[in-house]
């Protein structure tokens, strides 16, 4: 079902906006932006888990969406297409951020743990897990955060990444395996 029909927006009017957007009409694009920005923002937020970065990537994604207007196929719907572009924009950002973080991590030393309470130990495990997760290759990280943490259906994750469901399952498996190895290196046995 088209998004317009789902949200009560007049379907015929919505289709008109889609066709006008395909021709590069900025007003139609703004209308689509207003209708879909929340969904795209929410999707990106699930992947990056940081509101400020999600806002930045949402505007980047919509800029990419506008740039690709001529390739848009109205019959295939806007939201899935927008979600796919947003996923790739996020992937590009993760690759850049990861390279920068690797440089920074080399300069940071781990604090020495001493006589920690249970709560402190749990907090440390959470922090180490989060850091290990951030060290995963971006492709694996996106698949894992969407499929495992956010419980999104594998089919939706596959569509957003432009890969098969089997490839999503493989990426999730590899992400969990790498995560376990990283945690073991840090002295945590899952």
């Amino acid at each position: 079902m088209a998004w317009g029909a789902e949200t009560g927006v007049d379907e015929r009017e919505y289709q008109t906006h889609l066709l006008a957007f395909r021709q590069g009409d900025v007003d139609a694009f703004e209308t689509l932006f207003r209708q879909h920005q929340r969904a795209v923002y929410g999707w990106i937020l699930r992947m990056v888990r940081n509101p400020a970065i999600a806002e930045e990537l949402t505007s980047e994604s919509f800029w990419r969406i506008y740039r690709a207007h001529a390739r848009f196929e109205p019959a295939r719907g806007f939201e899935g297409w927008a979600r796919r572009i947003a996923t790739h924009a996020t992937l590009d950002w993760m690759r850049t951020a990861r390279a920068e973080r690797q440089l920074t991590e080399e300069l940071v030393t781990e604090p020495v743990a001493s006589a920690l309470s249970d709560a402190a130990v749990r907090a440390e495990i959470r922090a180490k897990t989060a850091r290990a997760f951030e060290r995963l290759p971006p492709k694996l990280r996106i698949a894992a955060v969407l499929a495992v943490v956010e419980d999104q259906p594998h089919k939706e994750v596959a569509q957003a990444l432009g890969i098969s469901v089997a490839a999503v399952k493989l990426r999730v498996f590899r992400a969990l395996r790498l995560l376990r190895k990283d945690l073991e290196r840090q002295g945590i046995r899952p």
Partner: protein
Amino acid sequence: MNTHDEDRVKQLLHEALPPVDPNAEPARDLWPAVLTRMDARPAMPPWFDWALMGGLLGLAAFFPSAIPVLLYYL
């Protein structure tokens, strides 16, 4: 990795990553930011358009007899 390990890693992941509000909205209107990007970076043809043009020029250079066919389909 067995199922138990997999479940345990998943559990650690759930505990480590902060929950996200499913109804979250941007704190500000992002349309001005999109417009700024559109103004700052004029839309360029995507890379595969350039690749297609290169391919067509190559085809025309190596097979000049194909030029009338290409012109017919343009």
